[in-house]
C-alpha cells in the first residue's frame, strides 16, 4: 500500500483514525515523560513498571473491571515496593528493581493464564495497533491530558527536582512526592501505550526518543518538544507498517525510534560521534 492510499484509508475508515489518534498521542506522552525518566537516571525503573502492570491487567479481568485501574494499582505498588526494598536493606537499586518487577511479571503471566479470559497475552506484551477500540482512544486521550497538564503546571518543580534534588529539598519542595507523582505518570503512560507498543517494548518509546533529543539540545523545554516529535514520528511509522504490511506495530515503532537515534548519534552537530571525530582531527592537524 502506498502512503497516498494509506492516507485515503485514514480518511475513509474510522478504525484507522482511532489508531492514528491513539498512536500520535502515545508518541507525545512517552516522549515527554521519557525525558524526565532519562534525566533522572530511571530508565531501568521505567522498564520495571511497564512490565509490572501485567498482574494488574489480569486481576482486572478476574474482577471484571477496566484493566486501567488494575494496571495503575500494580504500577504504583511496584514503585513503592522497589523504594521499600531499596531503603530498608543494603541491596542496590538496580537489584531491587530487578527483584520486584520480575516477581510482578511472573505473577502476571500465571494470572493471565489462570484468568483464561481470552485476553490476548501477545497483544498486551507486543501491542496491536490494528485492534484499537474507541474506549482505548478515549483512555489515551485522558491520560495524555493528565500528563500534559501535570508537566505544564509543575514544569518548574519537575525541572529543579530533576536537576538539583538537594536544592529542591532544601527550599522545601516535597521531592519524594514528586518522585511518586512521576511514577504514577509513568504507569499511566505505560497503560496507555499497551495497545500500540505493548508492555515489553514501551520502555524503548520512553527512553530512545528522549535520549535522541538529549543529544541535540541544552534546554529542557526544547528536549521535551523534540522528544515528543521523535515519539510521534516513530508511532506514525509503526501505524503505517502495521496496516500496510501487517507487521507488529510495537516492533516497527521501536526500530524507527532506534534508527532516528542512530542517525543523530552519529550526525548530531554538537554531540555526534562523526563530527566530534572530525573536529578532533582538525585540531590535531592544526597543532602539527
Amino acid at each position, binding site marked *: 500500500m502506498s502512503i497516498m492510499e494509506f492516507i485515503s484509508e485514514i480518511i475513509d475508515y474510522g478504525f484507522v483514525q482511532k489508531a492514528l489518534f491513539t498512536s500520535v498521542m502515545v508518541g507525545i506522552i512517552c516522549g515527554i515523560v521519557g525525558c524526565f525518566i532519562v534525566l533522572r537516571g530511571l530508565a531501568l525503573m521505567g522498564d520495571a513498571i511497564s512490565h509490572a502492570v501485567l498482574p494488574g491487567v489480569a486481576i482486572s479481568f478476574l474482577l471484571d473491571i477496566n484493566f486501567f485501574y488494575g494496571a495503575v494499582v500494580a504500577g504504583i505498588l511496584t514503585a513503592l515496593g522497589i523504594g521499600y526494598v531499596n531503603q530498608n536493606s543494603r541491596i542496590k537499586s538496580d537489584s531491587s528493581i530487578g527483584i520486584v518487577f520480575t516477581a510482578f511479571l511472573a505473577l502476571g503471566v500465571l494470572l493471565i493464564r489462570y484468568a483464561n479470559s481470552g485476553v490476548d497475552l501477545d497483544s498486551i506484551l507486543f501491542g496491536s495497533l490494528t485492534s484499537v477500540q474507541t474506549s482505548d482512544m478515549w483512555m489515551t486521550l485522558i491520560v495524555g491530558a493528565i500528563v500534559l497538564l501535570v508537566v505544564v503546571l509543575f514544569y518548574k518543580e519537575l525541572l529543579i527536582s530533576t536537576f538539583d534534588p538537594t536544592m529542591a529539598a532544601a527550599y522545601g519542595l516535597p521531592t519524594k512526592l514528586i518522585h511518586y507523582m512521576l511514577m504514577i505518570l509513568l504507569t499511566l503512560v505505560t497503560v496507555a501505550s499497551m495497545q500500540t507498543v505493548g508492555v515489553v517494548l514501551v520502555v524503548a518509546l520512553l527512553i530512545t526518543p528522549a535520549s535522541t533529543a538529549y543529544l541535540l539540545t541544552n534546554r*529542557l523545554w526544547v528536549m521535551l518538544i523534540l522528544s515528543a516529535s521523535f515519539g510521534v514520528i516513530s508511532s506514525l511509522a509503526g501505524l503505517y507498517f502495521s496496516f500496510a504490511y501487517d507487521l507488529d506495530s510495537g516492533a516497527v515503532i521501536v526500530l524507527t525510534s532506534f534508527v532516528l537515534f542512530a542517525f543523530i548519534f552519529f550526525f548530531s552537530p554538537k554531540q555526534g560521534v562523526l563530527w566530534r571525530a572530525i573536529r578532533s582531527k582538525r585540531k590535531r592537524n592544526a597543532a602539527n
Partner: protein
Amino acid sequence: MEHKSIAFSVQDLTVSYGEQTALKNIKFQVEEGNLVGVIGPNGAGKSTLMKASLGLIPKDHGTIEFYGKPVKQMRENIAYIPQRNNIDWDFPITVLDTVVLGTYPKLGVFHRPKKADRKRAQACLEQVGLQKFSKRQIGELSGGQQQRVFLARALAQQTDIFFFDEPFVGIDASSEETIIRILKKLRDEGKTVIVIHHDLSKAEEYFDDLVLINQELIEAGPADLVLTPEVLGKAYKSQLPFLQSEGADE
C-alpha cells in the same frame, strides 16, 4: 556594644547513621552578620551538621533554630550550596537558566519566572564575573566557574542566611578569590554565611568565627582563639603526628 540577634543556633544536636553516631550533643550559636567557618578533620561530620541543620537528614534529637524559628518556617530565607559532585553536569541547562533556578523558592507553585527574575539572575551572574558564559551549557565550564554559577544562584535566592559546603575544593585561585570576596561582601551587608572548610591555613584569613568539630563540638568562637595548637590538637589527635611530619618534609 550593639546587641546582635542570633541568626542560627544549634542545641544538643545528635545525628546517627544506623548504629554509628555521626554527631553528638553539638551546641553553638552564630550571630547575624558573621562569616563562619566549620572546620574539622575528615569524617568529623561537617556535611552532616549542615544537612541536619537544614532538615535534609533526620536527627536523633536536638533543636535547630534560625532567628528563633524552626527550619520549616525559614526555608525560603536560607540558600544552601551543596558539594559540586552531587550535580549532573550533562543536564540540558544553560548557565543563566541555572541561576534563574535561584528565583524559584520565592515564586509560588504554577508561577513562572518573569522578566524581572531573569534580569535579577543576569545581575547575579555579573557579580561572579560570568556574564559572558550565560548561554553555555553548565558542563562546559571549569570547576571554579561552576562553583561561581552556584554562588550566583544562591545570590538570586535573596536570602539572609547562606550555607556553603566545601566551596573551595578543586577550584582555581581566581575563582576562590572571587567567591571569598563575595562572601565577605554578604557578611558586610548583614547576611549570615556558614561555610564548611578544610584548609586550616586560610581559615583565619577568611572567617570571623570558627566552629571546630570532630563528632563533638571541640570549640566555637573567634578564629584566633580556635586556631591554637592546644584546641586543634583535641580535634586532630590522630592526624596531628601526620600533619607535623608533613610540615617537617618542607
